[in-house]
């Protein structure tokens, strides 16, 4: 067919898209995040707290002016100007130890959350994109893991394999993988039938490349929104393990073990070694969880 006319550049007009009923451009994830930030008072409270926790995880122990682990003679001092949160039965200042604990709690939680997200996403991506008997096997295994109470399994595992940081990180991440597997899977299952995936095949791309280049970035958002919640929960698990003595040992500053150390003293009126770590722990865990909630509303407003 011979061309009979030119296309003038002017005719190729209007590439700024808009639909007739709603002439605003569709909101990107970034816009939605900003919107949520502006309108959610919950987020405005919990975000600084979360950031503070992360800061303390990095710098907590270093900003402490006094020793965190050498016992002193100032035993069981109530909260005062010298010791804002008082001292515990070993004479250790509670305030600075509370601030130093994130170095353990939060760091371990970050490590295990990271591991869960990465491994869970990878497995979820590959098994959901490439279907097949292997995928079924993985899903059933994941169901099995999820069926067990996380905390009980964690205790058993740590007791069996030893109380090292690596083991703790490992078991917590392992037990959280099914969540991310599922999150990624539900996104990938709907993404793999989209036209742009077919277009990638038509371009000559091969499966694995398509999965990581096109599908994963579009599937990861819900998982990323869930991560802070997992973070909060992991902190709780670590504290719990340490509380019963299956995790971090004293005198390393750690909220769970601090609560345990001070537990005996509550009856006789020495509430401060347990309560302060407990309260700060609760606030931190809640902040991370709430942040995750807010992120999820931003992500799921499709």
């Amino acid at each position, binding site marked *: 067919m011979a061309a009979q006319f030119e*296309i003038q550049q*002017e*005719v190729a*007009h*209007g590439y*700024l898209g*808009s639909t*007739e009923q709603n002439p605003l451009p569709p909101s990107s994830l970034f816009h939605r995040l900003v919107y949520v930030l502006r309108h959610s008072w919950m987020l405005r409270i919990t975000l600084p707290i979360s950031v503070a926790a992360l800061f303390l995880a990095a710098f907590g122990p270093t900003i402490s002016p006094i020793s965190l682990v050498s016992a002193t003679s100032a035993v069981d001092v109530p909260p005062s100007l010298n010791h804002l949160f008082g001292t515990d039965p070993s004479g250790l200042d509670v305030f600075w130890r509370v601030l130093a604990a994130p170095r353990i709690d939060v760091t371990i939680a970050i490590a295990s959350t990271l591991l869960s997200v990465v491994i869970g996403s990878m497995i979820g991506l590959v098994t959901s994109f490439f279907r097949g008997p292997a995928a079924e096997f993985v899903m059933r295994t994941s169901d099995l893991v999820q069926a067990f109470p996380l905390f009980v399994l964690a205790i058993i595992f740590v007791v069996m394999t030893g109380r090292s940081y690596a083991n703790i990180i490992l078991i917590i991440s392992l037990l959280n993988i099914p969540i991310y597997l599922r999150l990624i899977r539900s996104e990938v299952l709907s993404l793999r039938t989209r036209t742009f995936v077919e277009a990638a095949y038509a371009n000559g791309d091969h499966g694995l490349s398509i999965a990581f280049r096109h599908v994963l970035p579009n599937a990861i958002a819900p998982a990323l929104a869930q991560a802070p919640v997992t973070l909060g929960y992991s902190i709780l698990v670590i504290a719990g393990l340490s509380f019963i003595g299956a995790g971090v040992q004293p005198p390393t500053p750690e909220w769970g073990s601090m609560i345990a150390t001070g537990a005996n003293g509550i009856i006789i009126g020495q509430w401060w070694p347990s309560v302060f770590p407990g309260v700060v722990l609760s606030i931190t865990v809640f902040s991370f969880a709430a942040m995750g909630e807010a992120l999820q509303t931003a992500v799921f407003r499709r």
Partner: protein
Amino acid sequence: MIPLLVQGLSIEYRASQTVNKAVNAVSFSVDSGEVVGLVGESGSGKSTAILGVLGLTRRGGYITGGDVLIEGRSTTHLREEEWRQVRGARIGLITQNPRASLNPVMRVGPQIMKVYQAHNKADNSEARARALSLLRAVGINDPERRFFAFPHELSGGMAQRAVIAMALSCSPRVLIADEPTSGLDVTIRAQVLDDLRRVVSSSGSSLLLVTQDLGIVANYCDRVYMMHVGEIVEEAGVDAFFNTPAHPATAALMAAHLKELRPRLALRGFPIDGRRLPSGCWLHPRCPFAEAADGCFERHPPPYEVEPGHWSRCHRYREVIAVGQDQLQPGEQDRGFSSDAPDLLPSHHVEN
């Protein structure tokens, strides 16, 4: 008494900071036994105007002026309960997507019965008989079986026919069909429209057909209104509409249907935003005919009479007609099929 008379209807959408004039002083009418087409690109306000006629607006929409007279009675001050007696009974609506109009968990027959019984005191057996006769009338063969079907069990064409039956159940004088066949297959579309037209003409009611498809307009409408950015810019009988289009928006739409570029008629840029209307004629930023000398940039065009029964809201309508005559002849490749071919199809099926 004209079954449907709309005078100066205006509808606005108010958002937090903007006002979108979706419909601007729109006036049209549909007479008994007439099929009238309401044409316009998407975004021109056709669907909003239709909803406005029924007293419905989407969230944030307000009717800011004008009157709608259904069978001679004004509807501006109707309360919601009174509207409910009008909708369905005096004026029926057929929407674009039949699956959206039908309750998916209820069988089709009872749905029609429900509508009928809402407006007429009738017992179940009477309503059932009415529903069956309606299904037969809209061209569903084997209506006894289809009566008990769920909407998802029906094909697209069948479902749309069921919706038509529902709209007709109370014998309204006015029917409004908003793109009733978009999404249907080509052969089904022709059948549904034929059935719709047949039913309308046999009952003497009026039909307002909202569409973007000029093929439908050419084959089923008696009169046509052209809408652009919420106002009616041209009105004509169907023959005049196609032979001498007198508005640039009309000419552009006709050119688009030729499947070939006609740069002299094409509109530039992208659709005009109802929240930021330009001065003068609202089409001028896009119009290939716009000239300052004729006031296109300053004066909003009043309706100019081209011929009795044909008017256009364009200062330069004469030029538009002239260029249209020249440019809108189908080219060599444009013929749907050769009109010189022998009549291949049984002549006794030709309807008039």
